[in-house]
Protein backbone atom coordinates (compact mmCIF):
# COMPACT_ATOMS: atom_id res chain seq x y z
CA UNK A 1 0.00 0.00 0.00
CA UNK A 2 1.39 3.34 -0.92
CA UNK A 3 0.68 6.66 0.64
CA UNK A 4 2.23 10.06 0.81
CA UNK A 5 2.54 12.23 3.85
CA UNK A 6 3.40 15.90 3.64
CA UNK A 7 4.42 18.42 6.22
CA UNK A 8 4.29 21.91 4.86
CA UNK A 9 6.34 24.88 6.02
CA UNK A 10 9.19 23.18 7.78
CA UNK A 11 10.43 26.34 9.37
CA UNK A 12 13.57 27.06 11.34
CA UNK A 13 16.08 26.18 8.64
CA UNK A 14 17.38 28.61 6.08
CA UNK A 15 16.16 28.50 2.53
CA UNK A 16 13.91 26.89 0.03
CA UNK A 17 14.43 23.17 0.25
CA UNK A 18 12.66 19.99 1.19
CA UNK A 19 13.17 16.48 2.43
CA UNK A 20 11.81 13.46 0.63
CA UNK A 21 11.81 10.10 2.35
CA UNK A 22 10.71 7.26 0.11
CA UNK A 23 9.55 4.22 2.04
CA UNK A 24 8.63 0.73 0.97
CA UNK A 25 6.79 -0.60 3.96
CA UNK A 26 9.19 0.08 6.82
CA UNK A 27 12.20 -0.03 4.51
CA UNK A 28 13.70 3.33 3.71
CA UNK A 29 14.47 3.41 0.02
CA UNK A 30 16.01 6.86 -0.05
CA UNK A 31 16.25 10.16 1.73
CA UNK A 32 16.99 13.28 -0.24
CA UNK A 33 17.41 16.85 0.82
CA UNK A 34 16.06 18.70 -2.17
CA UNK A 35 17.17 22.26 -2.73
CA UNK A 36 14.53 24.03 -4.76
CA UNK A 37 16.01 27.47 -4.66
CA UNK A 38 17.30 28.41 -8.07
CA UNK A 39 20.99 28.97 -8.68
CA UNK A 40 21.91 32.61 -8.28
CA UNK A 41 24.99 32.38 -10.47
CA UNK A 42 26.79 34.88 -8.30
CA UNK A 43 30.20 33.50 -9.20
CA UNK A 44 29.49 34.36 -12.82
CA UNK A 45 28.05 37.71 -11.89
CA UNK A 46 31.30 38.96 -10.38
CA UNK A 47 33.51 37.96 -13.32
CA UNK A 48 35.09 41.05 -14.80
CA UNK A 49 34.47 43.13 -11.68
CA UNK A 50 37.19 44.82 -9.72
CA UNK A 51 38.01 43.14 -6.39
CA UNK A 52 36.41 46.08 -4.55
CA UNK A 53 33.15 45.69 -6.47
CA UNK A 54 33.25 41.94 -5.96
CA UNK A 55 33.47 42.57 -2.22
CA UNK A 56 30.28 44.61 -2.32
CA UNK A 57 28.33 41.95 -4.21
CA UNK A 58 29.53 38.68 -2.70
CA UNK A 59 28.31 39.15 0.91
CA UNK A 60 24.77 39.53 -0.45
CA UNK A 61 24.76 35.75 -0.68
CA UNK A 62 23.58 35.66 2.93
CA UNK A 63 22.12 38.10 5.42
CA UNK A 64 23.12 36.04 8.45
CA UNK A 65 26.69 35.04 7.68
CA UNK A 66 27.30 38.19 5.66
CA UNK A 67 30.52 38.91 7.54
CA UNK A 68 31.82 35.38 7.05
CA UNK A 69 31.36 35.81 3.32
CA UNK A 70 33.03 39.20 3.45
CA UNK A 71 35.92 37.86 5.51
CA UNK A 72 36.41 34.82 3.25
CA UNK A 73 36.34 37.09 0.20
CA UNK A 74 38.83 39.47 1.79
CA UNK A 75 41.21 36.64 2.60
CA UNK A 76 41.01 35.21 -0.90
CA UNK A 77 41.28 38.56 -2.67
CA UNK A 78 44.16 39.78 -0.52
CA UNK A 79 46.11 36.60 -1.14
CA UNK A 80 45.52 36.98 -4.86
CA UNK A 81 46.64 40.62 -4.77
CA UNK A 82 49.68 39.94 -2.59
CA UNK A 83 48.39 41.98 0.34
CA UNK A 84 49.36 41.31 3.95
CA UNK A 85 46.83 43.13 6.11
CA UNK A 86 48.13 45.02 9.17
CA UNK A 87 47.82 43.37 12.58
CA UNK A 88 45.10 45.75 13.74
CA UNK A 89 43.09 44.88 10.65
CA UNK A 90 43.37 41.19 11.40
CA UNK A 91 42.41 41.68 15.04
CA UNK A 92 39.40 43.82 14.13
CA UNK A 93 38.27 41.15 11.67
CA UNK A 94 38.54 38.58 14.45
CA UNK A 95 36.42 40.86 16.60
CA UNK A 96 33.69 41.08 13.96
CA UNK A 97 33.68 37.29 13.60
CA UNK A 98 33.22 36.87 17.35
CA UNK A 99 30.19 39.14 17.10
CA UNK A 100 28.74 37.21 14.19
CA UNK A 101 29.27 33.96 16.06
CA UNK A 102 27.32 35.21 19.08
CA UNK A 103 24.58 36.58 16.86
CA UNK A 104 24.13 33.46 14.73
CA UNK A 105 24.66 30.81 17.41
CA UNK A 106 22.19 32.47 19.79
CA UNK A 107 19.57 32.57 17.05
CA UNK A 108 20.08 28.99 15.96
CA UNK A 109 20.42 27.27 19.30
CA UNK A 110 17.55 28.95 21.12
CA UNK A 111 15.05 29.99 18.53
CA UNK A 112 15.52 27.37 15.82
CA UNK A 113 16.78 24.18 17.50
CA UNK A 114 15.64 24.31 21.13
CA UNK A 115 11.84 24.15 20.58
CA UNK A 116 12.20 20.59 19.19
CA UNK A 117 14.05 19.36 22.24
CA UNK A 118 11.57 20.89 24.66
CA UNK A 119 8.52 19.67 22.75
CA UNK A 120 7.27 22.98 21.37
CA UNK A 121 6.37 23.75 17.77
CA UNK A 122 8.18 27.10 17.85
CA UNK A 123 9.92 29.66 20.02
CA UNK A 124 6.61 31.53 20.17
CA UNK A 125 5.02 28.56 21.88
CA UNK A 126 7.96 28.37 24.30
CA UNK A 127 7.39 31.89 25.56
CA UNK A 128 5.02 31.05 28.40
CA UNK A 129 7.30 28.43 29.94
CA UNK A 130 10.72 29.65 28.79
CA UNK A 131 10.18 33.37 28.38
CA UNK A 132 13.36 34.29 30.24
CA UNK A 133 15.44 31.94 28.08
CA UNK A 134 14.01 33.35 24.87
CA UNK A 135 14.67 36.91 26.02
CA UNK A 136 18.18 35.93 27.07
CA UNK A 137 18.78 34.61 23.56
CA UNK A 138 17.46 37.83 22.06
CA UNK A 139 19.75 39.88 24.30
CA UNK A 140 22.72 37.82 23.11
CA UNK A 141 21.64 38.21 19.50
CA UNK A 142 21.23 41.95 19.94
CA UNK A 143 24.72 42.18 21.38
CA UNK A 144 26.19 40.11 18.53
CA UNK A 145 24.43 42.41 16.08
CA UNK A 146 25.92 45.41 17.88
CA UNK A 147 29.46 44.06 17.53
CA UNK A 148 28.82 43.43 13.84
CA UNK A 149 27.51 46.96 13.40
CA UNK A 150 30.43 48.59 15.20
CA UNK A 151 33.01 46.67 13.20
CA UNK A 152 31.38 46.42 9.78
CA UNK A 153 29.35 49.63 9.74
CA UNK A 154 25.91 48.04 9.57
CA UNK A 155 24.08 45.14 11.15
CA UNK A 156 23.61 43.48 7.77
CA UNK A 157 25.89 43.83 4.76
CA UNK A 158 28.28 46.25 6.41
CA UNK A 159 30.89 47.60 4.02
CA UNK A 160 33.44 48.96 6.48
CA UNK A 161 35.83 45.97 6.18
CA UNK A 162 37.67 46.64 2.93
CA UNK A 163 40.61 45.20 1.07
CA UNK A 164 43.76 45.92 3.07
CA UNK A 165 42.05 47.32 6.13
CA UNK A 166 38.95 49.05 7.45
CA UNK A 167 37.25 52.23 6.30
CA UNK A 168 37.07 53.26 9.94
CA UNK A 169 38.22 51.44 13.06
CA UNK A 170 36.00 51.20 16.14
CA UNK A 171 36.60 53.96 18.68
CA UNK A 172 38.01 53.38 22.14
CA UNK A 173 34.57 54.18 23.59
CA UNK A 174 32.84 51.65 21.35
CA UNK A 175 35.38 48.99 22.21
CA UNK A 176 35.04 49.69 25.93
CA UNK A 177 31.27 49.32 25.68
CA UNK A 178 31.63 45.98 23.89
CA UNK A 179 34.19 44.78 26.43
CA UNK A 180 31.96 45.59 29.40
CA UNK A 181 28.80 44.19 27.83
CA UNK A 182 30.51 40.96 26.79
CA UNK A 183 31.66 40.40 30.36
CA UNK A 184 28.13 41.04 31.60
CA UNK A 185 26.71 38.44 29.22
CA UNK A 186 29.11 35.61 30.06
CA UNK A 187 26.88 34.27 32.88
CA UNK A 188 23.98 34.17 30.40
CA UNK A 189 26.07 32.11 28.01
CA UNK A 190 27.08 29.75 30.83
CA UNK A 191 23.40 29.20 31.62
CA UNK A 192 22.82 28.47 27.95
CA UNK A 193 25.51 25.81 27.90
CA UNK A 194 24.04 24.23 31.03
CA UNK A 195 20.62 24.17 29.42
CA UNK A 196 21.88 22.52 26.22
CA UNK A 197 23.99 20.07 28.21
CA UNK A 198 20.89 19.02 30.11
CA UNK A 199 18.96 18.08 26.96
CA UNK A 200 18.46 14.53 25.82
CA UNK A 201 20.06 13.93 22.43
CA UNK A 202 18.30 11.07 20.59
CA UNK A 203 20.69 8.42 19.26
CA UNK A 204 18.84 7.50 16.06
CA UNK A 205 21.25 9.27 13.74
CA UNK A 206 24.47 8.04 15.30
CA UNK A 207 27.24 6.79 12.98
CA UNK A 208 30.96 7.53 12.71
CA UNK A 209 31.59 10.95 11.18
CA UNK A 210 34.45 12.79 9.50
CA UNK A 211 34.89 16.41 10.58
CA UNK A 212 36.64 19.30 8.85
CA UNK A 213 37.43 22.79 10.05
CA UNK A 214 40.07 25.42 9.53
CA UNK A 215 43.19 25.20 11.63
CA UNK A 216 42.85 28.45 13.59
CA UNK A 217 45.54 31.08 13.06
CA UNK A 218 48.57 30.75 15.36
CA UNK A 219 47.26 27.27 16.22
CA UNK A 220 44.57 28.78 18.42
CA UNK A 221 40.83 28.15 18.40
CA UNK A 222 39.44 30.56 15.84
CA UNK A 223 37.39 31.28 12.76
CA UNK A 224 40.04 31.71 10.08
CA UNK A 225 43.05 29.75 8.92
CA UNK A 226 45.25 28.82 6.01
CA UNK A 227 44.90 25.07 6.35
CA UNK A 228 42.12 22.60 6.99
CA UNK A 229 42.12 20.08 9.81
CA UNK A 230 40.47 16.73 9.17
CA UNK A 231 39.43 14.54 12.07
CA UNK A 232 41.38 11.64 10.55
CA UNK A 233 44.54 13.50 11.58
CA UNK A 234 45.40 15.01 8.20
CA UNK A 235 45.96 18.68 7.48
CA UNK A 236 45.56 20.17 4.01
CA UNK A 237 46.32 23.65 2.69
CA UNK A 238 43.14 25.60 2.00
CA UNK A 239 44.53 26.27 -1.48
CA UNK A 240 43.82 22.57 -2.09
CA UNK A 241 40.18 22.94 -1.09
CA UNK A 242 38.98 21.21 -4.23
CA UNK A 243 40.65 17.99 -3.12
CA UNK A 244 38.64 18.19 0.08
CA UNK A 245 35.28 19.15 -1.33
CA UNK A 246 35.15 17.37 -4.72
CA UNK A 247 31.96 19.13 -5.72
CA UNK A 248 29.40 17.36 -7.87
CA UNK A 249 25.90 18.00 -9.14
CA UNK A 250 22.90 15.84 -8.24
CA UNK A 251 19.57 15.79 -9.99
CA UNK A 252 17.36 16.58 -7.01
CA UNK A 253 19.12 19.71 -5.87
CA UNK A 254 20.27 23.08 -7.15
CA UNK A 255 23.03 23.02 -4.51
CA UNK A 256 26.19 21.15 -5.35
CA UNK A 257 27.35 18.29 -3.10
CA UNK A 258 30.70 17.47 -1.57
CA UNK A 259 32.49 14.23 -0.72
CA UNK A 260 35.88 13.70 0.84
CA UNK A 261 37.54 10.39 -0.07
CA UNK A 262 34.15 9.40 -1.53
CA UNK A 263 32.45 9.86 1.84
CA UNK A 264 30.24 12.56 3.36
CA UNK A 265 31.73 14.81 6.00
CA UNK A 266 30.61 17.46 8.44
CA UNK A 267 31.65 21.07 8.99
CA UNK A 268 30.38 23.40 11.71
CA UNK A 269 30.72 24.03 15.44
CA UNK A 270 30.83 20.34 16.24
CA UNK A 271 33.70 19.90 13.77
CA UNK A 272 35.53 22.86 15.29
CA UNK A 273 35.13 21.34 18.75
CA UNK A 274 36.37 17.96 17.58
CA UNK A 275 39.38 19.44 15.79
CA UNK A 276 40.21 22.41 18.02
CA UNK A 277 38.29 21.87 21.27
CA UNK A 278 41.47 21.24 23.24
CA UNK A 279 42.57 24.79 22.38
CA UNK A 280 39.61 26.39 24.16
CA UNK A 281 40.30 28.33 27.31
CA UNK A 282 38.33 29.93 30.14
CA UNK A 283 34.95 28.63 31.20
CA UNK A 284 34.35 27.41 27.66
CA UNK A 285 37.26 24.99 28.11
CA UNK A 286 35.81 23.81 31.42
CA UNK A 287 32.42 23.26 29.83
CA UNK A 288 33.95 21.45 26.88
CA UNK A 289 35.91 19.10 29.14
CA UNK A 290 32.85 18.43 31.23
CA UNK A 291 30.47 17.68 28.38
CA UNK A 292 32.49 16.40 25.40
CA UNK A 293 32.21 12.66 24.90
CA UNK A 294 32.41 10.05 22.17
CA UNK A 295 28.81 10.63 21.12
CA UNK A 296 29.88 14.00 19.70
CA UNK A 297 31.87 12.01 17.13
CA UNK A 298 28.78 10.22 15.85
CA UNK A 299 25.73 12.36 16.57
CA UNK A 300 25.11 15.59 14.62
CA UNK A 301 22.62 16.81 17.23
CA UNK A 302 25.59 17.71 19.44
CA UNK A 303 26.26 20.60 17.09
CA UNK A 304 23.71 22.49 19.18
CA UNK A 305 25.70 22.06 22.39
CA UNK A 306 28.91 22.82 20.50
CA UNK A 307 27.41 26.12 19.32
CA UNK A 308 26.41 27.02 22.87
CA UNK A 309 29.96 26.38 24.15
CA UNK A 310 31.41 28.32 21.23
CA UNK A 311 29.15 31.28 21.94
CA UNK A 312 30.49 31.31 25.50
CA UNK A 313 34.05 31.21 24.17
CA UNK A 314 33.31 34.10 21.82
CA UNK A 315 31.93 36.22 24.65
CA UNK A 316 34.90 35.40 26.84
CA UNK A 317 37.29 36.43 24.05
CA UNK A 318 35.60 39.66 23.03
CA UNK A 319 37.09 41.69 25.94
CA UNK A 320 40.67 40.73 25.10
CA UNK A 321 40.03 41.29 21.39
CA UNK A 322 38.71 44.79 22.21
CA UNK A 323 41.76 45.52 24.34
CA UNK A 324 44.11 44.39 21.61
CA UNK A 325 42.40 46.50 18.94
CA UNK A 326 42.21 49.55 21.20
CA UNK A 327 45.91 49.35 22.03
CA UNK A 328 46.99 49.89 18.41
CA UNK A 329 47.11 52.99 16.24
CA UNK A 330 45.05 52.94 13.06
CA UNK A 331 47.25 51.62 10.25
CA UNK A 332 47.25 52.71 6.63
CA UNK A 333 45.26 50.56 4.24
CA UNK A 334 47.55 47.91 2.75
CA UNK A 335 47.86 48.15 -1.02
CA UNK A 336 48.11 45.39 -3.67
CA UNK A 337 51.59 44.30 -4.66
CA UNK A 338 50.33 42.69 -7.87
CA UNK A 339 47.30 42.78 -10.13
CA UNK A 340 47.37 39.18 -11.30
CA UNK A 341 47.27 36.20 -8.97
CA UNK A 342 45.08 33.69 -7.20
CA UNK A 343 44.15 32.97 -3.62
CA UNK A 344 41.75 31.04 -1.42
CA UNK A 345 40.16 32.39 1.72
CA UNK A 346 38.91 29.89 4.27
CA UNK A 347 36.92 30.98 7.29
CA UNK A 348 34.58 29.36 9.75
CA UNK A 349 31.08 30.70 9.31
CA UNK A 350 28.88 29.78 12.28
CA UNK A 351 27.57 26.82 10.28
CA UNK A 352 30.94 25.64 8.98
CA UNK A 353 33.92 26.12 6.71
CA UNK A 354 33.44 28.62 3.91
CA UNK A 355 35.79 28.88 0.93
CA UNK A 356 36.18 31.81 -1.43
CA UNK A 357 38.68 31.24 -4.23
CA UNK A 358 39.63 33.98 -6.67
CA UNK A 359 41.77 34.26 -9.75
CA UNK A 360 42.48 37.86 -10.68
CA UNK A 361 43.83 38.91 -14.04
CA UNK A 362 45.05 42.45 -14.68
CA UNK A 363 43.09 43.75 -11.72
CA UNK A 364 39.76 42.12 -12.62
CA UNK A 365 38.07 38.97 -11.32
CA UNK A 366 38.64 36.15 -13.80
CA UNK A 367 37.44 33.22 -11.69
CA UNK A 368 35.37 33.13 -8.50
CA UNK A 369 34.55 29.90 -6.71
CA UNK A 370 32.53 29.82 -3.51
CA UNK A 371 31.85 26.68 -1.51
CA UNK A 372 29.46 27.12 1.38
CA UNK A 373 29.25 25.05 4.56
CA UNK A 374 25.77 23.77 3.83
CA UNK A 375 26.83 22.51 0.39
CA UNK A 376 29.53 20.50 2.15
CA UNK A 377 27.12 19.19 4.79
CA UNK A 378 24.23 18.14 2.54
CA UNK A 379 25.42 14.59 1.92
CA UNK A 380 26.02 14.00 5.61
CA UNK A 381 22.62 15.45 6.47
CA UNK A 382 21.00 12.95 4.10
CA UNK A 383 23.07 10.09 5.56
CA UNK A 384 22.06 10.88 9.13
CA UNK A 385 18.43 11.45 8.18
CA UNK A 386 18.33 8.06 6.50
CA UNK A 387 19.69 6.41 9.65
CA UNK A 388 17.14 8.27 11.71
CA UNK A 389 14.25 7.20 9.49
CA UNK A 390 15.39 3.58 9.45
CA UNK A 391 15.80 3.29 13.21
CA UNK A 392 12.66 5.19 14.13
CA UNK A 393 10.51 3.20 11.74
CA UNK A 394 12.04 -0.04 12.99
CA UNK A 395 10.94 1.00 16.48
CA UNK A 396 7.42 1.62 15.23
CA UNK A 397 7.50 5.37 15.63
CA UNK A 398 4.61 7.31 14.11
CA UNK A 399 4.94 9.48 11.04
CA UNK A 400 4.88 12.72 13.05
CA UNK A 401 7.62 11.38 15.30
CA UNK A 402 9.72 10.35 12.30
CA UNK A 403 9.24 13.73 10.69
CA UNK A 404 10.31 15.51 13.85
CA UNK A 405 13.37 13.26 14.08
CA UNK A 406 14.33 14.14 10.51
CA UNK A 407 13.76 17.82 11.04
CA UNK A 408 15.89 17.80 14.19
CA UNK A 409 18.79 16.30 12.25
CA UNK A 410 18.45 18.83 9.43
CA UNK A 411 18.17 21.73 11.86
CA UNK A 412 21.14 20.56 13.92
CA UNK A 413 23.39 21.37 10.96
CA UNK A 414 22.07 24.94 11.01
CA UNK A 415 21.69 24.75 7.23
CA UNK A 416 21.56 27.95 5.22
CA UNK A 417 19.92 27.19 1.91
CA UNK A 418 18.64 30.76 1.93
CA UNK A 419 15.24 32.33 2.42
CA UNK A 420 11.68 31.15 2.13
CA UNK A 421 9.61 28.03 2.69
CA UNK A 422 10.39 24.36 3.05
CA UNK A 423 8.72 21.06 2.63
CA UNK A 424 9.27 17.65 4.19
CA UNK A 425 7.70 14.91 2.16
CA UNK A 426 7.36 11.35 3.44
CA UNK A 427 6.45 9.02 0.59
CA UNK A 428 5.27 5.48 1.29
CA UNK A 429 5.17 3.15 -1.72
Amino acid at each position, binding site marked *: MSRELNVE*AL*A*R*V*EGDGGITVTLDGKKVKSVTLDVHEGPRLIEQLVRGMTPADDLNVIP*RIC*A*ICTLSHRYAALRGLEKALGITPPEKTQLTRELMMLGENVESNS*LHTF*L*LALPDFLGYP*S*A*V*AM*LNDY*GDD*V*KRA*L*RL*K*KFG*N*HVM*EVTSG*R*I*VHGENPIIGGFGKYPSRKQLDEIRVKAQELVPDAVRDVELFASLEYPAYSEAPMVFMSVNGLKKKYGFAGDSILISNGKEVSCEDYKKLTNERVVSHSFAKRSLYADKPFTVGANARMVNMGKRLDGQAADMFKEHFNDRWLTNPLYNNLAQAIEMLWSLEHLPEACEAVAAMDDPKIAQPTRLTGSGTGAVEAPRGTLYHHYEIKDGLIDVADIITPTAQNLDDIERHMKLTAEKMLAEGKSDPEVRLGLEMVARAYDPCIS*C*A*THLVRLKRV
Partner: protein
Amino acid sequence: MHKLRDAPGETEAGLRAELESVAGQGRVYVLGLGYLDKADDGAGVLVAHALKKLFPSYSYSEHDGVEGTVLDISEKKEDATVFFVDAADLHAPPGTIRVVRREEIDDREITTHRVAVALMAAILERAGKGCAVICIQPETIEFRAQTSVPVKEAVGKLTAALSQVMKVRD
Protein backbone atom coordinates in the same frame (compact mmCIF):
# COMPACT_ATOMS: atom_id res chain seq x y z
CA MET B 1 -1.50 33.43 4.05
CA HIS B 2 -2.67 35.70 6.82
CA LYS B 3 -6.35 36.31 7.13
CA LEU B 4 -6.73 39.96 6.25
CA ARG B 5 -9.05 42.65 7.39
CA ASP B 6 -10.63 44.79 4.73
CA ALA B 7 -8.65 47.79 5.92
CA PRO B 8 -9.95 51.14 4.73
CA GLY B 9 -6.59 52.02 3.25
CA GLU B 10 -7.91 53.62 0.09
CA THR B 11 -7.55 57.12 1.51
CA GLU B 12 -5.03 58.63 3.88
CA ALA B 13 -7.83 59.63 6.27
CA GLY B 14 -9.26 56.13 6.26
CA LEU B 15 -5.85 54.64 6.82
CA ARG B 16 -5.16 57.04 9.65
CA ALA B 17 -8.46 56.13 11.32
CA GLU B 18 -7.57 52.45 11.09
CA LEU B 19 -4.15 53.07 12.61
CA GLU B 20 -5.66 55.20 15.38
CA SER B 21 -8.05 52.42 16.29
CA VAL B 22 -5.16 49.96 16.64
CA ALA B 23 -2.85 52.34 18.46
CA GLY B 24 -5.11 53.38 21.32
CA GLN B 25 -3.78 56.23 23.43
CA GLY B 26 -0.20 55.12 24.05
CA ARG B 27 3.12 55.78 22.37
CA VAL B 28 3.50 54.56 18.77
CA TYR B 29 6.67 52.96 17.44
CA VAL B 30 7.32 52.05 13.81
CA LEU B 31 9.64 49.24 12.78
CA GLY B 32 10.27 48.98 9.04
CA LEU B 33 11.26 45.58 7.64
CA GLY B 34 12.60 44.59 4.25
CA TYR B 35 15.52 44.63 1.87
CA LEU B 36 16.25 47.82 -0.03
CA ASP B 37 18.28 46.02 -2.69
CA LYS B 38 15.15 44.19 -3.81
CA ALA B 39 13.02 47.11 -4.97
CA ASP B 40 9.56 47.10 -3.35
CA ASP B 41 10.67 44.62 -0.70
CA GLY B 42 12.28 47.60 1.01
CA ALA B 43 8.99 49.55 1.36
CA GLY B 44 8.91 49.12 5.14
CA VAL B 45 12.44 50.42 5.49
CA LEU B 46 11.59 53.45 3.32
CA VAL B 47 8.65 54.30 5.58
CA ALA B 48 10.81 53.93 8.69
CA HIS B 49 13.59 56.08 7.24
CA ALA B 50 11.14 58.84 6.33
CA LEU B 51 9.60 58.79 9.81
CA LYS B 52 13.00 58.68 11.50
CA LYS B 53 13.63 62.22 10.34
CA LEU B 54 10.54 63.35 12.27
CA PHE B 55 10.55 60.91 15.19
CA PRO B 56 14.11 59.64 15.64
CA SER B 57 13.36 57.93 18.95
CA TYR B 58 10.27 56.14 17.74
CA SER B 59 11.04 54.97 14.23
CA TYR B 60 13.38 52.08 13.54
CA SER B 61 14.24 49.86 10.61
CA GLU B 62 15.83 46.53 9.88
CA HIS B 63 19.15 48.38 9.96
CA ASP B 64 18.72 49.18 13.66
CA GLY B 65 18.38 45.53 14.68
CA VAL B 66 14.83 44.28 14.84
CA GLU B 67 15.04 41.95 17.83
CA GLY B 68 17.00 44.37 19.98
CA THR B 69 14.58 47.18 19.22
CA VAL B 70 11.58 45.04 20.13
CA LEU B 71 13.30 43.84 23.30
CA ASP B 72 14.03 47.43 24.33
CA ILE B 73 10.45 48.57 23.68
CA SER B 74 9.05 45.57 25.55
CA GLU B 75 11.01 46.60 28.64
CA LYS B 76 9.84 50.22 28.64
CA LYS B 77 7.33 51.18 31.32
CA GLU B 78 4.84 52.84 29.02
CA ASP B 79 1.71 52.09 27.11
CA ALA B 80 2.86 51.49 23.54
CA THR B 81 1.99 49.98 20.19
CA VAL B 82 4.49 48.83 17.58
CA PHE B 83 3.62 48.96 13.91
CA PHE B 84 5.76 46.62 11.86
CA VAL B 85 5.77 47.75 8.23
CA ASP B 86 6.66 45.18 5.59
CA ALA B 87 6.07 44.25 1.97
CA ALA B 88 3.72 41.28 1.64
CA ASP B 89 1.96 39.47 -1.14
CA LEU B 90 -1.66 40.35 -0.49
CA HIS B 91 -2.85 39.20 -3.92
CA ALA B 92 -3.97 42.79 -4.39
CA PRO B 93 -2.99 45.61 -6.76
CA PRO B 94 0.54 46.98 -6.21
CA GLY B 95 0.66 49.65 -3.54
CA THR B 96 -2.34 48.30 -1.62
CA ILE B 97 -1.95 48.84 2.13
CA ARG B 98 -3.55 46.54 4.68
CA VAL B 99 -3.32 46.42 8.45
CA VAL B 100 -2.98 42.96 10.01
CA ARG B 101 -3.83 43.03 13.69
CA ARG B 102 -2.06 41.03 16.40
CA GLU B 103 -4.71 38.33 16.59
CA GLU B 104 -4.36 37.75 12.85
CA ILE B 105 -0.57 37.30 12.83
CA ASP B 106 0.19 33.70 12.02
CA ASP B 107 2.27 31.94 14.70
CA ARG B 108 4.27 29.96 12.14
CA GLU B 109 7.88 30.95 11.82
CA ILE B 110 8.43 31.33 8.12
CA THR B 111 11.69 33.21 8.04
CA THR B 112 14.93 32.68 9.88
CA HIS B 113 16.90 35.54 8.40
CA ARG B 114 15.77 37.29 11.49
CA VAL B 115 13.48 36.34 14.32
CA ALA B 116 9.92 35.86 13.12
CA VAL B 117 7.46 38.71 13.50
CA ALA B 118 5.15 36.30 15.34
CA LEU B 119 7.73 35.87 18.10
CA MET B 120 8.29 39.58 18.39
CA ALA B 121 4.54 40.15 18.51
CA ALA B 122 4.23 37.57 21.28
CA ILE B 123 7.00 39.22 23.29
CA LEU B 124 5.32 42.60 22.96
CA GLU B 125 1.98 41.12 23.93
CA ARG B 126 3.47 39.53 27.06
CA ALA B 127 4.86 42.92 27.98
CA GLY B 128 1.43 44.49 27.61
CA LYS B 129 2.24 46.31 24.36
CA GLY B 130 0.10 46.37 21.28
CA CYS B 131 1.28 45.59 17.77
CA ALA B 132 0.13 45.17 14.21
CA VAL B 133 1.72 44.57 10.83
CA ILE B 134 1.12 47.08 8.06
CA CYS B 135 1.53 45.29 4.74
CA ILE B 136 2.26 46.89 1.39
CA GLN B 137 1.69 44.94 -1.80
CA PRO B 138 4.87 45.01 -3.93
CA GLU B 139 4.92 45.23 -7.71
CA THR B 140 8.49 43.99 -8.11
CA ILE B 141 11.11 42.52 -5.83
CA GLU B 142 13.72 42.21 -8.55
CA PHE B 143 17.28 42.59 -7.29
CA ARG B 144 18.65 46.12 -7.77
CA ALA B 145 15.41 47.31 -9.45
CA GLN B 146 13.87 50.69 -8.56
CA THR B 147 10.94 50.99 -6.20
CA SER B 148 7.77 50.92 -8.32
CA VAL B 149 5.55 53.99 -8.69
CA PRO B 150 2.51 52.52 -6.86
CA VAL B 151 4.67 51.41 -3.94
CA LYS B 152 6.37 54.81 -3.80
CA GLU B 153 2.92 56.36 -3.54
CA ALA B 154 1.91 53.88 -0.86
CA VAL B 155 5.06 54.66 1.11
CA GLY B 156 4.20 58.37 0.93
CA LYS B 157 0.59 57.81 1.98
CA LEU B 158 1.50 55.52 4.86
CA THR B 159 4.28 57.82 6.05
CA ALA B 160 1.85 60.74 6.14
CA ALA B 161 -0.79 58.75 8.01
CA LEU B 162 1.68 57.37 10.54
CA SER B 163 3.29 60.74 11.11
CA GLN B 164 -0.13 62.16 12.03
CA VAL B 165 -0.77 59.30 14.43
CA MET B 166 2.69 59.66 15.99
CA LYS B 167 2.54 63.46 16.12
CA VAL B 168 -0.43 63.61 18.46
CA ARG B 169 1.38 61.21 20.82
CA ASP B 170 4.78 62.91 20.72
